[in-house]
C-alpha cells in the first residue's frame, strides 16, 4: 500500500494555512520552552550573575552542588512533601467512585464543590490555611481539642510544618483534576464487564479489584507520572508565600532553592545546575515508571 505524506494529503493552500496556524504555537514552544531548556543546560557550566560576562567553569557548579548540605536538605524536603501523592490518588479515586455511583443525587453540585479548591486563588487558600493552622485560635487545633488532643504549632513547628503542607495539599488535590480524570476513566469502563462479573458471583470488592482497578490502570499510570513530576517541581508557591521556606528551611523545596540561588543570590549557573539535576531525577524516575507501566498497565 502506498503511504502518503501529510503534505501530499493536503492541498497546497491548506498546507500553508496549517503551518500558519501552527506557527504561534511552534514559535512559543521554541522560544519559551526548548530554547530555555538548552540555555539552562549550557548555563550550568558557567558562573553568571546576570549583568557581568559569563565565566566558563566547566563542572564546578555540579561539584559544589554535591557537597552543598542545603541541596540535600531541600531534596529531602521535596521527597517528603511527595508522601501525600499516594493518599491524594487514593482519595481522588474514592471520590470519583462515589460521584459515579448511579444512585447519588446532586452529582453536579458535589463535583463543583470538590473542584472549588483547585480553581481558588492560591493566595486566598494560603491565607485561609494560615488561619486554620493558627496554634492558638485556628480551626485545626480547636477540632483536635474536642478529642482531647493538644494540637502542635503546625506551620511554625519544624517537625509539623511539612505534614501541615501535605494536609493542605491533599485538601486541594483530592477533589481536583485527578478526580475528574478518574471520573472519565470510570465512565469508559463498559457496564458489561460489571454485569459479567456479577453473574460470575464477584463481590463489590472483587469487581473493584479485578475489573475497575485494571481498567483504570492507564488513568492511574498517567496520574502517577504527572503527580510525581509535579511534586518534584513544586513547592515554590507555598514556600514563597505561606512559610517563607521556614521554619529553619523545613518547607523549602528544590524549586524554591532554584529561585533563591538564581534570583536572590544571583548565581544563575548554580541555579541552572540544580535544575539540571532535578531534570535528571525526573527523567530517570519517569523512565522507571514507563518500564513498570509496560508490565502493569492494561489497555483495552
Amino acid at each position, binding site marked *: 500500500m502506498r503511504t502518503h505524506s501529510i503534505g501530499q494529503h493536503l*492541498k497546497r*493552500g*491548506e498546507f*500553508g*494555512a496549517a503551518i*500558519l*496556524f501552527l506557527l*504561534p504555537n511552534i514559535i512559543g514552544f521554541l522560544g519559551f520552552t526548548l530554547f530555555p531548556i538548552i540555555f539552562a543546560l549550557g548555563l550550568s557550566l558557567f558562573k553568571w*550573575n*546576570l*549583568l*557581568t560576562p559569563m565565566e566558563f567553569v566547566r563542572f564546578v557548579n555540579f561539584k559544589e552542588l554535591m557537597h552543598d548540605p542545603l541541596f540535600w536538605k531541600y531534596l529531602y524536603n521535596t521527597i517528603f512533601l511527595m508522601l501525600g501523592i499516594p493518599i491524594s490518588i487514593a482519595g481522588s479515586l474514592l471520590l470519583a467512585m462515589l460521584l459515579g455511583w448511579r444512585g447519588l443525587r446532586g452529582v453536579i453540585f458535589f463535583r463543583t464543590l470538590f473542584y472549588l479548591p483547585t480553581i481558588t486563588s492560591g493566595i486566598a487558600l494560603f491565607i485561609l490555611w494560615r488561619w486554620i493552622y*493558627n*496554634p*492558638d485560635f485556628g480551626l485545626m487545633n480547636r477540632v483536635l481539642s474536642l478529642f482531647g488532643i493538644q494540637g502542635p*504549632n503546625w*506551620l*511554625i*513547628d*519544624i517537625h509539623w510544618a511539612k505534614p501541615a503542607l501535605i494536609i493542605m495539599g491533599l485538601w486541594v488535590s483530592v477533589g481536583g483534576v485527578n478526580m475528574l480524570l478518574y471520573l472519565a476513566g470510570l465512565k469508559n469502563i463498559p457496564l458489561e464487564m460489571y454485569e459479567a462479573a456479577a453473574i460470575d458471583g464477584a463481590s463489590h470488592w472483587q469487581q473493584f479489584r479485578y475489573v475497575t482497578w485494571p481498567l483504570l490502570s492507564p488513568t492511574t499510570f498517567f496520574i502517577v507520572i504527572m503527580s510525581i513530576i509535579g511534586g518534584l517541581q513544586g513547592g515554590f508557591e507555598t514556600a514563597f508565600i505561606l512559610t517563607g521556606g*521556614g*521554619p*529553619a*528551611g523545613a518547607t523549602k523545596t528544590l524549586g524554591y532553592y532554584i529561585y*533563591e540561588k538564581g*534570583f*536572590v*543570590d*544571583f548565581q544563575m549557573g548554580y541555579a541552572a545546575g540544580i535544575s539540571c539535576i532535578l531534570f535528571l531525577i525526573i527523567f530517570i524516575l519517569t523512565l522507571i515508571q514507563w518500564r513498570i507501566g509496560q508490565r502493569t498497565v492494561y489497555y483495552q
Partner: protein
Amino acid sequence: MSRIRMKQVQYIVLILVGIFLLSSDGELIAGEKKNIVVLRWMTDPNPIRKQQVALFEKMFPDVKIELDASGHRLEKVLTQIAAGAGPDLTDLENTGALHTLAKIGALYDVTDLVKEHKIDLTKYWPQARPWHEVNGRIYGLPNGCISFVMLCNLNIFRKYNVPLPKEDWTWDDFRQTAEKLTRKDAKGRYECFGYAGYAFHSWWHWLWQNGADVFSPDLKRCILDSPEAKETVRFIYNLRNEWHVAPSPLELAGMSGGGGWGQEDINLFAVNKLAMFERGRDSLIQFRKFPKLEWTAVPLPRKKDKASTFYSRITAITRDCKHPRDAFKFLRFLYSEEFQRQIVDLVDGQPSRQDICKSDYFLRDPNHPEDWERNKIFYMETEHSRNIHLSPYISFPEMERAITSVFDEMWSGLLTPEQACEKMAKEINFIIDKNLSSEKKSQ
C-alpha cells in the same frame, strides 16, 4: 474551504500578527512627551509616595515621575536591569544592595553631578554615608532615615500602673518593666505581652549595647560566637522562654493578622496587646489610624554601651536611565529643604539631613505638639545609632538566611542560644572562606 477563502484567512492572520508585533514595540511607548521627560521610580507601596511625587513635579515641572510602587527588592531591580528594562530611579533597601549594584556597574555614578550642583553631603547624618557611597563614589542620595527607639503603649502602662522607663534604664530595668506589663486572662491565655521584636533587623543594637558585633573589624570573620554575643542572644532567648514577657518570632507571626503596610508588632501594639517594641519614626503614620492609641517613645535600654540601629533609604539612578541629568533632579529634590520638611509632615521616618532634624520644624512641629517629646527622643537616639556593618565577603541574603534559619532552630528548642551563636558563626564563616578562596583563585 475554498481556495479564495483560505487565502483571505491567511491574510487576516498575517495582519493580526503584524498588529500584535507592532503594538509590543517598546520604542513606540513614549518616554518623552513634548518637552517633559518621564521617569520610572521603583519604590515601596507607601501611599505617601504620590504626595512626594506631586511636590517634586511642582518643583521640577519638566520631569514627570511614573510611580512603580510594587517594591524595590534587589532581585527585582537586578532582573529588570539585566533585561534592559530597569527603572530610571530605584530605592535601595540596604547597603548590601548598594554595594552589589555599584560593583557590577548597574548604578549611575552621580559623584560629579553632586559636585556640580554643590550638594553638601556633610549636612546628612554621618551614619548615612555608607548608604550612598562606595569606595569614595556616590551612587544615590538619602530618602529619609530612622533610628530605633522603644515605643511604649501608654494605655497599657496606665492600666497596670507601671511607671515609664527612665532615659538611662538598663537591661534589668527593661526586663522588670516587661514582666510587670505581661498579663494573662482568666483562662491563662496571654492578654498582653510586655515586649516583642526579634525580627532580624531589630537585634543588632542589643549586640552593640553588650559590646558584641556580627563581624570582626576587618569584616572577614563572623564573631557571633564571642562570649558577649552569646550573652546577648541568651538574654533575647530568655525574654520569651525563661521570663515569658515576649512571644517568640514564630508565635508572633502566628498571632498577627498581617497584611497592609506595616508589620505584626505594629498591629498588636495598636490594639493594646503589646506594651513595648522597637521601631523608628516611620511607624507614626500607622498609629495615626488609631486615634484611641496613646503612646510615647523612650530611648533603648543600655548595658555596657548606648546604641541604636540606623536605617536609611536611598534613591539611585540605574544604568538603564536614558536621562540621568533629569533623573538627578529627583535626587536634588531629595536633598531639598522642601522634601526634608515633607518627610516631617508625612511622617516618612526622619529627615536624613541633620540640620533639619535639629530645627524646630522637626523638634517642635506646631501642628503636632504631642510629637515634641517623641521627636526629641528620635533625634537623641539617632546620635547614638550605628549602621549594620555588612561584610563584602558574604551577600546580605546569604547572611540573613543563615541567621534566621539558626534562630528558627533555637526558637523551636533544637539549639540553645550558645549553640545557635556557634552555628551561625560557623555557617557564615564557611561562606566567607569560600568566597575569599574564590576571589584568590580568580586573582
